C-alpha cells in the first residue's frame, strides 16, 4: 500500500551528459533544502541491482521520476521495479521552455544552475500536490 507521507525522487543521474547531471543537482536541492522532511532520494543503480531499501522505497511511496533525455531511464527502471510513478520531470522540456542551457556535465554554468533551481521548484510543487491528495 502506498504511504503518502513521503515522496521518493528518482533522478536518472546519467553521468555522460549535462541534463543527466542536472537531474541529480535538482533532486539534491529538493531532498536537502526544499522538502527535506517529505522526500527521499532513490539512486538508480542500487534500484536496478535490487538493493532492498531502494526497491522498497519506490514500492511503498509515490515516486517522481526525473529524466535527463528521451531514453527516460529513470521512468523505465522505476516501472520495472514496480514503483508507482505519480509525477514526472523531463529536463529537455525545461531547457526548451526556459531557453536555458547547461554548458557541460562537469560545468553546468550559470544557466544550468538556474535551471536546477527551476526544476527543483517544479519537483517541490509536484511533491506538495501528491501529498495533498
Amino acid at each position: 500500500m502506498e504511504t503518502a507521507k513521503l515522496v521518493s525522487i528518482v533522478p536518472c543521474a546519467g553521468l555522460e551528459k549535462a541534463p543527466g547531471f542536472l537531474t541529480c543537482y535538482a533532486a539534491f536541492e529538493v531532498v536537502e533544502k526544499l522538502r527535506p522532511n517529505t522526500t527521499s532520494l532513490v539512486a538508480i543503480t542500487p534500484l536496478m541491482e535490487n538493493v532492498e531499501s531502494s526497491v522498497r522505497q519506490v514500492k511503498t511511496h509515490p515516486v517522481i521520476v526525473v529524466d535527463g533525455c528521451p531514453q527516460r531511464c529513470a521512468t523505465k527502471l522505476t516501472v520495472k521495479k514496480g514503483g508507482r510513478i505519480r509525477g514526472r520531470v523531463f529536463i529537455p522540456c525545461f531547457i526548451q521552455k526556459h531557453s536555458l542551457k547547461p554548458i557541460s556535465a562537469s560545468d553546468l554554468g550559470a544557466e544550468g544552475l538556474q535551471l536546477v533551481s527551476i526544476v527543483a521548484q517544479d519537483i517541490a510543487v509536484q511533491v506538495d500536490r501528491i501529498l495533498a491528495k
Partner: protein
Amino acid sequence: MKRSKVKVGVVSCSGEDYPEGTISRIATRLIIDKIRPGQTTTICLPLFLCGGENERAFARDYPTITVDGCSKRCAERSTRKYSGAPAASIIVSEIAKKYPFLKLDDSDEVGSNGMKLAEKVADEIAHQIDKIIEQS
C-alpha cells in the same frame, strides 16, 4: 577479444544517496575532462542498465574501470552482469579509509574535503588506466 590502444571506459555508480556516490561521479568527470581526456570515456549507467546496446557493447569490447561509492558495488555488479568483468574496480569508501582526515558530511555540498577525496580517487583511476594501457 579486447581491442588494444583504445579508450578506457569509466563507469561510475550513481549512488546519490551517499556522499561517496557523489565523490565517484566527480572523480569520474575529473578523469574524463581533465586528467585523461582523449584516453577515456564514460558510459551512461542508467542507459546501460536499461539495455542500451551501444553502452553494453562498449563495456564488452573495451577495458572498463568501475568506480563505486560503497561496498554494494552496484556499478561493478551491473557491468559484470551485462558486459563481463571490468578491467579494474575502485571503491571510494575503501580509498576514503586511507584518508580519515578527509571526513565527508551528508550534505550535497561536496566541500573541500570531498573535492580532495575526489582527486585521490581520480589519481587511483588514472593509475589503473595507465596499467591497462601499458598491458594493451
